[in-house]
């Protein structure tokens, strides 16, 4: 195991600030008139984009360890994952409170009728569950084995997130494909390492 050059606390702090970056950026844009002609749509897409990217960052902790032997990303994993959840939650709150302005009839119709919104809600449910069980008490209560099994669903959330993005695009599939390719790469590294482990046992 390699030791990182910087003290863990500083790494943690830096990573926290980086993860907060998109949110700070949004606030700056909002106060500088940078949200464009349709601010509600802008905020919605911005938060959706960064929710998916934050999730991909959180999902890269284990692959980084597999490929480079770094252990410090693993220690950041909970914080990274909670940031991903925070962006997803903000994306959702923006949809409910601003985009639809609590029009529950339209919201329910959307969730039931529009596949990409149903898919997004699926990812939200998974990530909420994982966020709620991200503390030490939950790990103890569930037992390490069950907890790990439950938290593997984070990949399902990643797949749903990419699918959600993919299926709301009108014609330009490149941006969702790039995100999906990153996810596939990260998932591929984990599967490769799993297969390798099984083979050596």
């Amino acid at each position, binding site marked *: 195991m390699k030791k990182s050059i910087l003290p863990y606390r500083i790494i943690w702090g830096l990573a926290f600030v980086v993860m907060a970056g998109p949110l700070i950026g949004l606030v700056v844009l909002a106060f500088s008139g940078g949200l*464009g002609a349709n601010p509600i749509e802008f905020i919605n897409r911005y938060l959706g984009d960064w929710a998916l990217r934050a999730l991909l960052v959180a999902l890269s902790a284990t692959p980084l360890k597999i490929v480079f032997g770094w252990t410090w990303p693993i220690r950041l994993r909970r914080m990274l994952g909670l940031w991903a959840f925070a962006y997803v939650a903000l994306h959702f709150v923006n949809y409910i409170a601003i985009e639809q302005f609590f029009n529950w009839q339209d919201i329910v*119709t959307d969730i039931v009728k529009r596949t990409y919104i149903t898919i997004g809600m699926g990812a939200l449910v998974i990530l909420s569950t994982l966020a709620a069980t991200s503390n030490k008490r939950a790990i103890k209560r569930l037992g390490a084995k069950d907890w790990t099994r439950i938290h593997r669903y984070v990949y399902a959330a990643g797949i749903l997130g990419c699918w959600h993005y993919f299926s709301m695009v009108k014609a330009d599939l*490149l941006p969702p494909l790039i995100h999906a390719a990153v996810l596939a790469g990260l998932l591929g590294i984990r599967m490769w390492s799993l297969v390798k482990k099984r083979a050596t046992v």
Partner: protein
Amino acid sequence: MLIKIRKPWELKDQDVTPEHLFKQRRKFLKIGAAALAGGIGGGMLSRHAFAAWPAAGELLADVRKTAFDPGEALTPFDQVSSYNNFYEFGTGKDEPVYGAKDFKPAPWTVEIAGACAKPGLYDFSDLIDPHPLEERIYRHRCVEAWSMVVPWVGVSLADVIKRLEPTSKARYIAFETLLDPDRMPGQHRNVLQWPYVEGLRLDEAMNPLALLSVGLYGRTLPPQNGAPLRLVVPWKYGFKGIKSIVKITFTEDQPPTSWNRSSAHEYGFYANVNPEVDHPRWSQAKERRIGEFFKQKTLPFNGYGSEVASLYADMDLAKFF
């Protein structure tokens, strides 16, 4: 008289355009400064501290005011010209204002082809100048469920068609956008099949509402809005309003249309604004007017039913969406 007002946020590239355009377009009287009006400018300056100010075109002379006016608040120029779906200049709605910045819509020729008595290559001014310029304020409803109110300037499409004398074989009219990836960098990627094509049934095109637009807010069209020549059919979704037209063909058969070709179950040939027929992925019952918080109900034919509903009297609009 030469009026040139340079605002501090104007970019240097403005320096290059005027002389060139001045030579090309006889009809357009004055070289425009980039700002639409100082009044709007002051308020918007702070809001656009970090964005390029959309440059306005040249001032258009002899524009007739018309009765086409829904009496609703106009969407400000900077929003009309900075929030555009024009994939030839990028697929994000905030991209064309930057991507089209250096697009020169002159010289410009339009090819007239197909079933008509006067086919041929027309210079932009030969096609447009014989007709009076009218200002028409129309609601603009995008298929993405947002809308604007735009003061277009243009000529009646019906008048242009009559002058071209379509033959009895002409049942449809097809339009084509410029294909030139060097000038329209978005065409380097096949997001849609290029060039962009659109079409109307001839009786739709002859409807008095149909406009061949050459400007908005009293000035020539900004490139991102489809300079120098675009279609405006306000009872249809915005994507029918093909931009930067270089070819018009009279056809016997229904011509292909770009979005229909891209996704036939989502975008029909007619694309009439219809709150009853949802896009498969979202509702069309409501729309968000740019600049407003609350959504409003979408009107059948975008509120132009009294003028156009008769065109579709015997048609199942859920089938012919």
